């Protein structure tokens, strides 16, 4: 019936800042960055893997009314919007060192779990990202 989940979405509070974080700090690549007039369609993907894109959407009118957009921004900033990514890597420790040197917000350092070695970070807005070297 289905083949794959190809796109999902995260709310970000500033798309220029999001682009800088997701590409220059986290190391993803821009898959699309288009001015559609009514919105900026900004997606990122793991380098070389455009089959799975994350839309970095800025909450605001006309898609959301001002009051709702403000509520979304507040929820994102307290980590309650539910935006979450889980990314795999071949070397969690090396990736951690790279991100730490780039000044990324670390929520927990690499440690062994039953499922692999992983660590957590947040984007500048409050969304949670886990990066794991899975067994």
């Amino acid at each position, binding site marked *: 019936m289905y083949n794959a989940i190809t796109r999902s979405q995260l709310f970000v509070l500033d798309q220029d800042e999001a682009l800088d974080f997701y590409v220059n700090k986290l190391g993803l690549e821009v898959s699309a960055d288009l001015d559609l007039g009514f919105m900026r369609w900004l997606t990122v993907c793991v380098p070389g893997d455009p089959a799975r894109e994350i839309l970095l959407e800025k909450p605001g009118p006309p898609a959301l009314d001002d009051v709702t957009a403000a509520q979304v921004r507040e929820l994102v900033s*307290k980590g309650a919007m539910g935006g979450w990514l889980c990314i795999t890597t071949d070397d969690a420790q090396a990736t951690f060192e790279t991100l730490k040197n780039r000044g990324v917000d670390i929520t927990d350092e690499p440690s062994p779990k039953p499922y692999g070695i992983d660590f957590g970070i947040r984007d500048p807005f409050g969304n949670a990202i886990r990066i794991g070297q899975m067994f």
Partner: protein
Amino acid sequence: MARSVIDDNRRMLRARDAMDRDFALPLDLAKLASVAAVSEAHFIRSFKATFGETPHRYLQRRRIERAMYLLRTTDRSVTDICMEVGFSSLGTFSRTFTAIVGESPSQFRVHGPAPHAPTSFVPSCFVKAWARPSSFREAS
């Protein structure tokens, strides 16, 4: 106005993340307020407004959640676990644990309710967020 709520939320989240990460360390209000880069008075008030419970309760219950996890998944002694999760006194740990969980650490280890399904595949941040005994709905 809205900008400052968002900025403040993000600061509080950074301090909450520090509690989730560094619960084993002697975290005090001065340290946490400095992580959030706000005054201690502002920190207590704002943390509660943001997350619905005081930073003290949040940290206390993070430590108890970790203790429950270690009691369940290891055979380490209660004293070891008490120190591991950031308590410095076994008496305080046992009293706090019993008050929150409803049974002592050693009773919990033997009798406490087990998860309905294995959790070993679940990313640890979800376990920590969902298995923490919160102080919501409690009398303050």
